[in-house]
């Protein structure tokens, strides 16, 4: 009996000690920064990197300039798109440099909770679509119309596509209506998810090396076009009516993807207290050509992100000088 009381008392003590140690008040997780930030007493900024290389190019150049021109310390964290919004609203990262349109998150965090502030346009427009390699399109020009796709299903078969043609999709984090499109357009295809962009790119490169035909979900701007030239397959045109239908029921979409202007988003607190870094990130805007140049250096020439950014910064001062606050 006595021992039991003792145990209870000591347990209480431990809890009390823990509570005092941590301050015993409310601890707002959204105010807790990364433990690696500010480690050596410098001003630091955390940028989210998405898995695709274009986004890495933005971050690389922003990081390089923040470090070498403005004297910040920059950390980058790789997160998928939707979790990145979440992290941004919690202040775990300070900025997303390239967003392809997440209306649901935008409404929740920008309009309702006001924890995220828009950071302006990136200057690059993005487009998602279906693409075939140029060598295949040259040999069979009519593959470029979706109505003829079924004719080529047999040539596009793979072990994973269960007897149908294969439409290769990439990372599950990307915006895609492909399953709905295949069903609604009556195509004899199966959507095969590569699971990650890295896997998808590897597969495309391998097919291109063999000059094998393929049909893939892809997007521009993307550096891979320089290495594997591809031509877009025309889908039924994008209309407002179709977009409204898709917003109500994603499985009803039967038209092409829109062309989106890519945007930046910043943590709301960061825009207020981030000083020069926040203003710099807001000013950051460049062209598709610039982005591709850096992305190509990273992905194809296998330069480190830092090295690629350094080279681009050296050659293009007229572009970035005006970003500096």
């Amino acid at each position, binding site marked *: 009996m006595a021992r039991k009381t003792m145990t209870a008392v000591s347990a209480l003590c431990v809890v009390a000690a823990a509570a005092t140690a941590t301050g015993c008040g409310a601890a707002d997780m959204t105010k807790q920064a990364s433990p690696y930030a500010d480690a050596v007493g410098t001003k630091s900024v955390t940028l989210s990197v998405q898995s695709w290389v274009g986004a890495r190019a933005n971050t690389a150049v922003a990081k390089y300039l923040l470090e070498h021109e403005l004297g910040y310390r920059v950390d980058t964290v790789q997160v998928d798109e939707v979790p990145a919004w979440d992290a941004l609203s919690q202040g775990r990262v300070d900025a997303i440099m390239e967003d392809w349109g997440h209306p649901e998150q935008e409404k929740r965090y920008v309009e309702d909770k006001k924890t995220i502030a828009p950071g302006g346009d990136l200057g690059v427009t993005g487009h998602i679509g279906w693409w075939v390699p140029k060598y295949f399109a040259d040999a069979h020009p009519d593959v470029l119309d979706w109505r003829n796709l079924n004719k080529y299903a047999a040539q596009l078969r793979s072990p*994973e596509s269960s007897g149908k043609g294969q439409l290769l999709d990439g990372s599950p984090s990307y915006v895609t209506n492909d399953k709905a499109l295949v069903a609604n357009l009556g195509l004899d295809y199966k959507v095969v998810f590569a699971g990650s962009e890295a*896997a998808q790119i590897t597969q495309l490169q391998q097919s291109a090396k063999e000059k094998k035909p393929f049909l893939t979900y892809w997007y521009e701007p993307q550096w891979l076009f320089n290495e594997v030239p591809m031509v877009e397959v025309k889908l039924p045109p994008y209309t407002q009516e179709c977009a409204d239908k898709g917003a109500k029921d994603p499985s009803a979409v039967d038209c092409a993807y829109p062309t989106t202007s890519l945007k930046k988003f910043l943590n709301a607190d960061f825009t207020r207290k981030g000083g020069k870094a926040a203003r710099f990130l807001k000013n950051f805007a460049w062209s598709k050509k610039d982005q591709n140049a850096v992305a190509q250096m990273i992905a194809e020439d296998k330069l480190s992100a830092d090295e690629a950014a350094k080279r681009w910064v050296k050659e293009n001062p007229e572009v970035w000088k005006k970003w500096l606050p």
Partner: protein
Amino acid sequence: MTVHTASPQMKTAPPGRDASAPHPAVLALRALWARPAARKLLILAAAAAVLVPVAAATHGSGTWPSAFTVDLTKPLTGASDWIIDNRDSHWAFLYFFGHVSGAIIGAVHAVYTVLLALGWAGVTAAAALLAWRVAGARVAVIALASFAACGLLGMWVPTMRTLALMIVAVAVSVAVGALLGLAAGLSDRTFRALRPVLDTMQALPAFAYLLPVVLVFGIGVAPAVLATVVYAAPPMARLTALGLRSTDRGVLEAVESLGATGRQRLLTARLPLARRELLLGVNQTIMMALSMAVIASVIGADGLGDRVYQALSTVDVGSALAAGIPIVLLAIVLDRTTAGAASPSPRRLWAGVPQAGGTPGRRLGEGGHNQRRARTRRTTAWLAALAAVATAALATGDKPWPDTWTVAIAAPVNDAKDWMVDHLYTGLPGIGGTADLAAHYTTWVLDPLRDGLQALPWWGALLLVAALAWLIGTWRTALTAVLSLAAIGVLGRWELSMDTLSQVVAAVAVTLVLGFAIAVPAARSPRVERLLRPVLDVFQTMPQFVYLIPVVALFGVGRAPAAAAAIVYALPAVVRIASEGLRRVNPGAMESARSLGATGGQQLRQVQFPLARPQLLLAVNQAVVLVLSVVIIGGLVGGGALGYEVVFGLAQGDLATGLTAGVAIACLGLMLDRVTQPTKGARDGA
């Protein structure tokens, strides 16, 4: 799984012998009844005969009947929305989770600051000295070389981040594990209650429970540490309990007769006697925690894992390897150091894959007459070491690692990979190349297997699982296995799970064939074993992510690369356990077999394999658990099925999809574990 049906007692059904016996049929039945395996099957058959017609009549014989499924999408989406909306205002988050997260972040920050303050020379010196003190000069040299290599690879800062996170995660895991183990070691009831929980935690692929942690804590270091603790605490708990429970009865009685109280008994006898198990537990916990380092990068853990993950998104195997090598080196240093502390003789990496028994290394405190002098010497040594570390730290200043002292290995590694892919992808003599190999594996092995499993009537699958689990274990394991499978059906993930299951079964089969083929020569010749050991060490600790991209380059996108990665990952454990089992076979038995003129093959089949059966079954069990964990990660390279759903859930923050798939994976893991778990519980004669 199919391997088990080959258990010896099944093959020989006794035929009715004599016409003179009164009722040959009855006699045969009685003979059958005498065999436990057959008895179990008969009982099961009887139960099936009653239940199956009912089940088939009411709910058909196709896949899992929709009447028994529960759709959790709505409540889960609701829960997810609630958490996001209330995360910054509700008291549970402010006063509980907030403090948990804050404490973790504070601890990691503190450790990281110390590591940075020590500088590269300080950290390296400290690590080498610690290794020397604990495990001897050889390990100290390994530590020195390893830390230098981390710096040379240009990975110093990420290595320190991972190390800081690991130190905190391991400390928490060891504390939690030791407490649980203490409770389980001292009370039978707690032990019984805890065991299935620990079993489940260990059979769970880590990928499956990342999402709920992320939802509550957001991305970052806090959820990474927590996920690591869930993954790494069970071995500590298990080994602590084992150590406490296997205390020598005689010693205990002697201590009791001296009038020691309960606490004295624990502190002076049971804990010191369990020292070996405790240290082995720490060792296992560290290994598990390190293997989580990369997986945790998916939820923003930063450090080396993040470098691997980022390198993969640019298909840059060389950089991924440059970040993967420090992980391997850290693992080797930490393993050798803690293993050196556990026993005077050098131990092998991961040697403690669940193995009971073993002799405790050191008995009760050594005592001795020159204790005081030893203590003085020890203090002096420590002071000298501290001074050395401080000097090293001061000498290098605050620069993490000199930029010029790095070696770029990425480019040559990528060239090597490209060369390999170019030469293996097509144009291999005989089989046509890895691409064709993958296509054949998919269409001839995986597709039929998957279609077969999916075509299996739902009650048939349940029966099959029950039979397998019961034959190998007890009715309890069989019940758990059946309930797990049923839970998958209830969650509405039957077809996907069968797809995943087919991938696991096929990959396990290949792993076992290859593994046993390698284990046999390794068990016979110490030289082969020595050659193999470093290779196994590296493959076992190299993060799975590093070889995901090369396998895609070789085998294309789909289920084949996932299988290849799984086989590479599971093979070392299988080879190790199997060769260990074969080597341990009683030399007397081998000798007598040889003296009877048995050939090498006969010795193997009739002596070694049967005698090493428990170890071989353990190898199967480990293969199943490891393969499952990689098949899930295979969702990243087109493996599809449950793995894809988890990846999708994580990527889209979709709790309904991710969590349901995660639970289904957990159930699948539990079911597979039970179906292949021979050693648990009282094995009633089987």
